[in-house]
């Protein structure tokens, strides 16, 4: 998909140019606010990928469409990467702003759980010799995990308001200026096209791998047939 490749590279290049050179530093956070241009789009994509994965899994279970399984499976590592980026860049942003690498607040904890869910999905999808079974088990997990994301967010919210004063964490959303919004959106769309680009690559890979398995199976069958005749 050359057009996906071109738009991904173009959008991210434009987003980086605007974000690193042309957007002003924040009046409170200074230049550290530029971390936002990777952090926020990555966090959005982390949630988007999980939604896509759960949706594809549900579609695969309901309509038994093989391509939906392939899409869900190909999405998992991309979503895990975005979640990792969001966690790591958030940590690097938190250190200068809040004075700590990590806080057990609602946002961070639910993102961490999302990362675990991705990892669990990937491991489960690879844990069976029987392909069909691996796909279906992983699909059930993706759907069950989707229910958990809002629950986690809500429960940790409550947990924290009781135990931790929301002093450090309350970054009053700097009413965002167009000069900051533009690079943010460019990066977000660039990340989205990156997702579709890599998704296409991974799905093509999976489909070809499926063809290889089918060819091997047919050959094994015909050899067995030759021998018996």
């Amino acid at each position, binding site marked *: 998909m050359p057009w996906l490749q071109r738009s991904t590279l173009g959008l991210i290049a434009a987003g980086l140019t605007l974000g690193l050179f042309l957007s002003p530093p924040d009046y409170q956070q200074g230049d550290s606010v530029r971390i936002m241009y990777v952090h926020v789009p990555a966090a959005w994509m982390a949630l988007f990928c999980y939604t896509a994965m759960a949706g594809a899994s549900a579609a695969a279970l309901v309509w038994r469409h093989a391509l939906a399984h392939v899409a869900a499976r190909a999405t998992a590592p991309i979503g895990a990467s975005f979640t990792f980026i969001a966690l790591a860049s958030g940590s690097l942003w938190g250190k200068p702003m809040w004075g700590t690498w990590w806080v057990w607040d609602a946002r961070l*904890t639910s993102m961490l*759980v999302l990362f*675990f*869910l991705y*990892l*669990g999905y990937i*491991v*489960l999808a690879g*844990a*069976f*010799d*029987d392909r*069909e*079974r691996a796909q*279906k*088990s992983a699909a*059930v*997990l993706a759907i*069950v*995990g989707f*229910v*958990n994301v809002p*629950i*986690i967010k809500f*429960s*940790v919210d*409550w*947990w924290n308001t*009781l*135990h931790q004063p929301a002093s450090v964490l309350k970054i009053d959303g700097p009413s965002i200026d167009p000069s900051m919004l533009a690079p943010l959106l460019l990066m977000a769309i660039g990340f989205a096209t990156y997702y579709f680009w890599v998704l296409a690559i991974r799905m093509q890979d999976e489909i070809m791998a499926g063809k290889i398995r089918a060819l091997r199976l047919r050959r094994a069958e015909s050899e067995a047939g030759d021998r018996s005749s």
Partner: protein
Amino acid sequence: MRRTLLILRRDLRLALRQGSDSFAAVMFFVMAVALFPFGVGPEPNMLARIGSGILWVTALMASMLALERLFQNDYDDGSLELLALAPLPLEAVVIAKIAAHWIATALPLIAAAPVLALLLHAPAEILAPLALALLLGTPTISLLGAVGAALIIGSRRGGVLLSLLVLPLAIPVLIFGVGAVEAALMGLPARPYFLVLAAFLLAALPLCPWAAAAAIRQALE
């Protein structure tokens, strides 16, 4: 209903006769809790402060131990296939097996928890909230764990995989379970926490057996 009870009795008898799984879980629970004073120091105030968290987390780990074999044994010897063919809905079978698992492993844990809490210098007034929170929370963990146990039937690395799947899902129960005990510790009303734990249980009660039964059917296909 009667058939469900029959399966429950069969599973309980098996658990009691082998005795190993539930005994191992309780032993693990006691040992792990006993390790904490060595790890964080025997200072009574500190232990009292973190005691409820220690008990909840180790109870969670301990219940993971026996869950791994919840369906695997029956799958290996073929009786799961027979149970799936029985006139009884598979969901009822799953509920019976979960109930048996809970009675065999979680109840001993709940019985041991107050004693261990006293060893961790927890004040006496949190013992009842702790037991009640565990009583409301552990069935939800067993239900969630059953989904995980059904998903990993026939997989290559069961035990680690099960923890990886179930522990993230159990975090809400952990948060509110510890919250109830903490509230009692600070003299606040613990009732909202119990209500939320009960709500989790009521939500998990229909959903988890259904998901676990779906996963088992796929495993048997």
